C-alpha cells in the first residue's frame, strides 16, 4: 500500500473507504467457509520449542532450523542449527501441525538446551526473534513463571498481534502465574479428552480461551519414533494447525479476526459438537 497509514486513533469519513475489507464476511460463518479445501499452503508456522527432528517422516520438510542462546549479555542466533530436537517435544508439535496443515511451511526455533539457568531469557529472545521474522503463526508450548519477564513478554505478544503474527500458547493447568499464555493478545489453549483433532471448544470463562485435543495424542518423537502423549502442549499445535488452514484460505485475516473465526467455528458455537 502506497497510501499514508491511517492515524491510529481516529477515522474520518474519507478513511472509511480505505479500510474496506478485501473479502466480505459471510452471513453465516461455517467451517467450510473458514478452511474448506485449505492445506496450509503459503502459511509460515514457527515451532518455538526444543528443536525439530527434520528427518522424521511425520514432520516432513522443515524450512529453517534456528537455535537461540545467551552468552553473557550477547544473544546468539544460530541460523543453521543441526542439533535436531533435544527432547522430542518440538518434533511432536511439528508433526501435529503437519498432520492438520500438510502444506504449511514449518520453521523450528530452538530455545531449549542451553541449561536451565537463563532459560527464561532464551525463551524471551527466541520469541523476539520469531516475531521479527513475521511468521504467520508461532506455536509456543512453553511458559515462564519469572515475573521479571512478564512485561517484556507482554510487549512482544502485543507486537506480534499488531504485526499479524498469531501467537498460540499452552495454558497452564497448575495454580501458578505463568506467561505468555495469560495475555489476551495470544490464543491460549487447554486440553479436552475427545479423539477428534478438529474438535475444539471456546471457553466463555477465560483466561484459557480454547480447548483442543490433548489427551492420548499419537505424536512424532525423536529417533523417528512415535509416542502416545497427553498435555496442553499437544493441544496447542492443533489450534496452530487449524489457524494455519484458515490463514491459507483467508490471507488477510488479522489475529483478531482469526480468533473470532476460531470462536465462530468452535465445536460448542457454530462448528457442531
Amino acid at each position, binding site marked *: 500500500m502506497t497510501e499514508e497509514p491511517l492515524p491510529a486513533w481516529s477515522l474520518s469519513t474519507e478513511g472509511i473507504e480505505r479500510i474496506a475489507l478485501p473479502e466480505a464476511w459471510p452471513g453465516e460463518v461455517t467451517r467450510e467457509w473458514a478452511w474448506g479445501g485449505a492445506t496450509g499452503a503459503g502459511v509460515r508456522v514457527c515451532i518455538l520449542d526444543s528443536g525439530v527432528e527434520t528427518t522424521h517422516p511425520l514432520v516432513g520438510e522443515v524450512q529453517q532450523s534456528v537455535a537461540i542462546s545467551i552468552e553473557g549479555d550477547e544473544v546468539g542466533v544460530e541460523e543453521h542449527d543441526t542439533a535436531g530436537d533435544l527432547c*522430542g517435544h518440538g518434533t511432536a508439535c511439528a508433526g501435529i501441525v503437519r498432520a492438520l496443515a500438510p502444506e504449511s511451511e514449518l520453521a523450528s526455533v530452538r530455545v531449549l538446551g542451553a541449561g536451565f539457568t537463563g532459560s527464561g531469557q532464551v525463551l524471551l529472545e527466541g520469541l523476539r526473534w520469531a516475531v521479527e521474522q513475521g511468521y504467520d503463526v508461532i506455536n509456543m508450548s512453553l511458559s*515462564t*513463571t519469572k515475573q521479571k519477564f512478564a512485561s517484556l513478554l507482554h510487549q512482544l505478544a502485543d507486537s506480534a498481534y499488531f504485526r499479524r503474527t498469531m501467537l498460540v500458547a499452552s495454558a497452564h493447568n497448575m495454580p501458578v*502465574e505463568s506467561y505468555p499464555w495469560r495475555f489476551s493478545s495470544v490464543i491460549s489453549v487447554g486440553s479436552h*479428552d475427545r479423539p477428534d483433532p478438529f474438535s475444539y471448544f471456546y471457553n466463555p470463562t477465560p483466561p484459557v480461551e480454547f480447548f483442543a485435543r490433548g489427551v492420548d495424542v499419537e505424536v512424532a*518423537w525423536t529417533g523417528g519414533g512415535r*509416542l502416545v502423549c497427553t498435555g496442553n*502442549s499437544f493441544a496447542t499445535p492443533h489450534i496452530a494447525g487449524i489457524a494455519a488452514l484458515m490463514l491459507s484460505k483467508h490471507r488477510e485475516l488479522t489475529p483478531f479476526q482469526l480468533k473470532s473465526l476460531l470462536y465462530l467455528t468452535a465445536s460448542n458455537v457454530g462448528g457442531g459438537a
Partner: protein
Amino acid sequence: MSDDLRSAVAAGVLGAETNYRELLQSIVAVARAIFRAKASSIFLLDEESDELVFEAVAGEGSESLVGRRFPSSTGIAGFVLVSRQPLVIEDVLEDPRFSRETAESTGFVPKGLMAVPLLHEELALGVLEVLDRPSEARFTLEEMDLLGLFAGQAAIALDLLQRARRAQATLDDRGELAVLARVAQKLEQRRDEAGAALALLSALERVLE
C-alpha cells in the same frame, strides 16, 4: 542475625532436613501407590551446577538413584522444568531415543511416564515423575489434575528442604556458633532434663550482656 534468632534457627533447623526428606519420600511413595506405578521420583534443581538431582525415589531404582545428577535442560524432565508444562507419555509405539536415555539413567526402560514441574511462587524447583502406570488404564484429565495436586505438595516440601539446607549452611559457615546449634539440638532432645542446663545458659547470657 541476632544470637536469639540464630539459636532459634539452630533449634529449628537441626533435624529439619531429615524430616523434609522423609516428607518427599512419603510423597513419591503415595504418588506411586495412587497411580499404581512402578516407580516415582522427585528431582531437585541444583541451580549452582545447573543440574537435576534425584532427591527421592520410590520403587524401581530407589536404592541407587538418590543423589545422581544429570543436565537440567535436556530430556523429558529438563523439558518439563524449562517449559513449566506437565507432560504425559502413555505409550511408546516405536523405540524413540528417550527410552534408551531414561534406561541409562534409571536402570530400567519405562513404557510411559508422567512428569510435572514443581513450581513454588515464581520459582521452578524441580520435577516430579511417575513411571509406568498399568498399561490397560488410559490416562484421564482427572489424573492430570491429581498429578498437579501432588506436584503442589512436593513443591512445598522441596522449598522447605532447600530452606533448611540454606539455614544449615549459614550456621555451618559460622563455625564458632555451631556449638549453639548442637546445644539447642541436645536440649530439644532432652527437654525433661534441660532445666539445669537452661539455668546455666541464662546465667551465661547475663554475663555476656
